[in-house]
């Protein structure tokens, strides 16, 4: 029987900004389940997520998606990616539903199925009642939940989530944690967080990003 679990491998990945080395030769294999990235602010957690989400290219080293190296496998990775960065320049004049349908089109999803799935996702993050409200009228927390919801469109097998629960109230955090835990049953979920509650117990790995290195923050985890 063939193992169809997704795999993501980083091989000597380095990222520099000018002279500043943010990530220095990181190697790690991610498999199905939830991986938390922790570490101090500015340590490179978001940079690592952007590299994984192919929003940036590494200065050196490479990524492998399901055994295939990038950039050859970039399109394949992007087809199975859900990405929720910390901040997005949201199109304020659109409604949440219109934005979701636009993101679904970019992901190549069927419009009617995407519409039905996005309604469910909005319900999951507690935005169903505001689905037809313009994003401009949303609070900061509602926008963050919308960014998270669009990442789950199309059942991605790789989810890169940059502090998806920051600034959220406890009820919203629980809703999002439930969705993350469900997604982690079939996908690689990599999430940056400063918080240790909620999802930490369900995490299969906790990694610390600091001084350009990636190290296990919980005993028994292989880097």
């Amino acid at each position, binding site marked *: 029987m063939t193992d169809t679990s997704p795999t993501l491998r980083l091989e000597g990945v380095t990222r*520099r*900004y*000018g*002279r*500043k080395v*943010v990530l220095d030769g990181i190697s790690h294999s991610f498999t199905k389940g939830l991986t938390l990235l922790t570490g101090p602010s500015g340590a490179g957690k*978001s*940079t690592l997520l*952007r590299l994984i*989400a*192919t*929003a*940036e290219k590494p200065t050196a080293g490479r990524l492998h998606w399901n055994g295939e190296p990038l950039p050859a496998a970039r*399109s394949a990775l*992007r*087809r199975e*990616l859900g*990405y*929720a*960065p910390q*901040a*997005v*320049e*949201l*199109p*304020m*004049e*659109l409604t949440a539903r*219109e*934005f979701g*349908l*636009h*993101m679904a*089109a*970019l*992901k*190549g999803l069927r*419009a009617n199925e995407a519409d039905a799935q996005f309604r469910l996702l909005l319900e999951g993050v507690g935005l169903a009642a505001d689905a037809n409200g*313009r994003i401009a009228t949303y609070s900061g927390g509602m926008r963050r939940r919308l*960014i998270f919801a*669009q*990442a789950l469109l199309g059942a991605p097998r790789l989810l890169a989530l940059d502090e998806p629960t920051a600034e959220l109230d406890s009820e919203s955090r629980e809703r999002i944690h439930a969705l993350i835990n469900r997604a982690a049953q079939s996908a690689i979920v990599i999430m940056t967080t400063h918080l240790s509650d909620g999802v930490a117990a369900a995490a299969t790995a906790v990694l610390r990003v600091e001084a350009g290195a990636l190290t296990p923050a919980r005993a028994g985890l292989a880097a």
Partner: protein
Amino acid sequence: MSAVALSCARTSLTRYGRSAGLWILLLVAPVAARFMIAGRGAHNSVISVSGQVPWLTSPVLGMELGVVIATLLLPLAFIYLRSNITRRQPWQVEEPSPGSRIAIAYGRWLADLALLAGVLAATTVAGVFLAMLMMPLREVDPLWITLTLWAIAAPPLAMVASLRILFDARRWTRGALGEVLFFVFWMGSLVLVMAGDHAQGYAAAMADLDGFMSPLAHGLHGDSNFTIGGGEITAGAPAIHLDVIGGVLNDGYLAARLTWLAIAALVPLAAGLVHLPHVVGKTRKTPGWLKFLEPGAAKPADPKAREARPGALPWLTLLACEIRLIASGRLTRLAMLAVAIAGWFLPYAKATGPAAMLLLVFAATAHAGRTEQGGLLALTRTGFLSPWARRIAFVAAGTLLALAMSGAGIGHALMAGDTAPLIQALAMGAGTSLAAITLAALTRGATTPRLVLLIAWYFYLSWGGGP
């Protein structure tokens, strides 16, 4: 690919449709046309030939409307597309998506094209209405108004939409360089056509992107004594008959207009192919010989530092702060110093005055664009000095910087009893700063003030201190 392009076009059009700016843009061309088309007894006209106004026919009216759009309205259209809401795209999630960059570029281009076609349609309707007011009804021919107007104005408008997509594809042209390049493109297209030999045929029509010279030259029969834009009309001079239809149907003209449309349609393909993703941090190393332009290392914090107390002269502190922020960066300060020193050797009106204004345009619009962002404004409203105080300080700081850069030129002139450079520097500094902060406050960015002031700078440069 088509689903991605359609989604981008649909969302962009939805966003345009929900912004008040769209309706203003749709009104600009018809309103401008109303004031620029000369009726009988007019003292000036969009086009005048040897002091004579063209006899108003439907094709002439269409051509005059086309001239208004292809000259004056191109920068406005670019500013609108460039600084409009749809420029702010969710690139953070779009760029890592599997959606094709070419499809995204075409989707956005189609939306921009539809918007500009709306401007042309509104101008066409206004043109027919104007014709009914200014001409005998039996002579009004909507078909010829439409054909001449669209043949002239559609290709340059399509190129504007294409350039905005192309400039958004590359990191450097997403900023100030994009506005400079558009300004060069716009001025270049006008200069090229005005300086040409007004020949006929496909090649000549291809050199005429703005599209009005070929039909105009056909009707002039070699008379090159014509004026575009506000030409004086000699009192009592008879109207001149222009054969615009002959010019439009002339050999190669329509083929050249279609070729320009085809070129414009290919630009989004190039934009998609050369697209570079946005970057969050600085990725390039500064070459060693330019290291001196980099900000130096921060001073270490003093553990004995006292808590900051309110200044005795908050207005003066604000003014000093604005001067420092406008003239931020070592490169800007070095360039300003170079202009100030050059004032000892070079004429003020033709050299250092325009150089000082150009520097001030870039420095002032960059700072104004940064400080008029919504989030920062909300924060500064809670401060001791209101955003209005800062805006006044900004204008004062810009004026002082203009005076500082012009000091040598002013000194030279004053010693010779000439106060003109002093007045020019004051007017240039205050005018530039005031326009920069006003336009930045209205548009919440640096794009509009920069492009408008670049056009103003060109006129200042051409004026060269007057007669």
